[in-house]
């Protein structure tokens, strides 16, 4: 096989690509505006700490104790109390009509049982259709129950075993702290897969590929040449995201910048190569863009651990996520950003990313057609 890689030819492709990027307003806007926009949207809008939960209270007891119980809920800042519109059925119907996410039902004997027997019951009904909110509310209930016990009995109930909880790396469980380091992953994935998915398809569409193929240039030279300028753009986007995270959201960067930059570089190459592979296989820009969105955006949002923990997935889908570069970089990004992890902590994700990058570049090169056969 007549295969000679020539770095000068690869650089000439890179230079040409740089001209296209600098002169194409769409590419430039995508590269600069999209990262900032995504950081702002996700960073400001996504909040895992659920607040202002609608709570319908049906108080059939109407006593000092029942009112104290309701007060505990209303003063927790998590709930907005909606008074019941009549019967218990109405209180439950409020969940159907989305008026409330939960209903607190207090039976007539609530205070009597407390005073006569030392214990009493109230019913708390949750909207299980929205299980993520239900899960969060359930988390709040432990603390609220403790507060209610204290308010109604005046004594602190001592548990035989008490687990003291402390959150490392994000003591206040701040959502932006959790979200923004993961955003670096999503931004790079979307940006790089989209940008390169169009680049080879564009050459097929505008006919320049036919001319390129008649020159001595090799597939690997085209691929490496096209990767270089987009890698630089991607690194600039990462820097932008990190700056917004630190300066805009006040998130502390606990780890090593160089290690983070190195991880970003390998991840970037993997994503760019994924886009390149799409572009090599699909010769029209429109279809290439659609496939890039499906294979780039959705997995990096839903299957990388960005929002939903991978550990809670069934085993097979969980194993499948290992072929996604974004899964590995999510571990690296959060590890370095929040925990200050070093290379020895992150060996496995680094190896995973490196292997995926190599496989994707080799596959894109192999699949690159050096002829015009349909």
């Amino acid at each position: 096989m007549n295969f000679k890689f020539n770095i000068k030819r690869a650089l000439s492709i890179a230079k040409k690509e740089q001209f296209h990027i600098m002169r194409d307003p769409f590419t430039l806007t995508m590269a600069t505006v999209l990262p900032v926009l995504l950081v702002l949207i996700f960073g400001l809008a996504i909040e895992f700490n659920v607040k202002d939960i609608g709570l319908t209270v049906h108080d059939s007891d109407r006593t000092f104790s029942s009112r104290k119980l309701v007060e505990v809920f209303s003063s927790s800042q998590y709930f907005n109390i909606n008074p019941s519109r009549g019967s218990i059925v109405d209180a439950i119907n409020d969940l159907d009509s989305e008026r409330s996410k939960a209903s607190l039902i207090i039976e007539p004997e609530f205070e009597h049982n407390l005073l006569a027997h030392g214990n009493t019951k109230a019913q708390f009904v949750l909207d299980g259709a929205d299980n993520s909110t239900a899960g969060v509310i359930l988390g709040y209930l432990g603390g609220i129950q403790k507060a209610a016990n204290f308010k109604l009995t005046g004594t602190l109930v001592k548990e035989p075993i008490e687990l003291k909880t402390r959150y490392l790396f994000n003591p206040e469980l701040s959502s932006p702290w959790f979200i923004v380091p993961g955003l670096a992953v999503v931004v790079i994935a979307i940006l790089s897969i989209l940008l390169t998915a169009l680049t080879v398809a564009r050459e097929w569409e505008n006919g320049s590929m036919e001319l390129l193929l008649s020159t001595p240039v090799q597939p690997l030279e085209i691929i490496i040449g096209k990767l270089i300028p987009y890698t630089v753009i991607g690194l600039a986007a990462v820097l932008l995201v990190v700056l917004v995270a630190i300066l805009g959201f006040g998130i502390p960067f606990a780890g090593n910048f160089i290690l983070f930059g190195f991880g970003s570089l390998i991840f970037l190459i993997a994503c760019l190569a994924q886009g390149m592979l799409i572009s090599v296989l699909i010769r029209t820009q429109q279809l290439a863009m659609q496939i890039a969105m499906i294979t780039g955006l959705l997995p990096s949002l839903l299957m990388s651990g960005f929002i939903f923990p991978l550990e809670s997935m069934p085993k097979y889908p969980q194993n499948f996520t290992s072929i996604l570069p974004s899964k590995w970089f999510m571990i690296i990004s959060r590890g370095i950003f929040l925990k200050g992890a070093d290379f020895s902590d992150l060996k496995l994700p680094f190896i995973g990313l490196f292997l995926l990058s190599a496989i994707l570049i080799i596959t894109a090169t192999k699949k690159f057609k050096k002829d015009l056969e349909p």
Partner: protein
Amino acid sequence: MQQMSIGIKINNIKKKLGPNQALNGVSTHFEEGLLHGLIGPEGAGKTTLLRTLLNLLTPDEGTVQFTNHGTNIDYNSIRSSIAYMPQQQSLYADLSISEHLDFFRDLYQIPQDVYLKRREELLHITRLDKFIDRPAGKLSGGMYKKLGLMCALLQSPAAILLDEPTNGVDPISRREFWDLLHRLSKENILIIFATAYMDEAERCDRVHILSTGSLIAEGTPRGVLERENVESYDALFIKRAAEGVL
């Protein structure tokens, strides 16, 4: 610099593209240093034949043999000596003339001193020297084709394959284009010029007339007309069309 001369012999080339038999057993000889016209209407198989010569398409049957003074040579060894100008617009609209030339210099790894000399020479004969900073997308049809030709000629090729380069070009630019080709032809370069314009046949050293994937006539421009007993190529095509061959 003495340029190596290249000839191409093709034997019984057949190529099917989808349901269509694009080439149906074409055999001919493109002789070293001559200007060959590959002439035929749209869909005759001209582009498919050129792409097959360049290895961009693989023939279903038949062989393509490159020669140097009658001796067979390996395609890979002379591949970078063959230039091609595709039919469809294939240059980069946002790159200027100067940037295109620099790009092709790098692709063909032309030494800087050779490049500068060649570039000056080509800009002069194409009369594009005043427009070197103009993007390809803003050039007129004739200028665009000339730029395509310049990019192909930059590496001083031994053979150049041009696919309908004068299509959609005004008459003055067409004349200039042909003057350029005749000038090149004197440098011992094999030129294969595909065109649907019948009048261009008479400007070639040899003509090969293609119709629906088959070669229906070939020879010197005059010789073909004499054999067919017609006065012009327009008349030849009218006659062939009446016979239902075209």
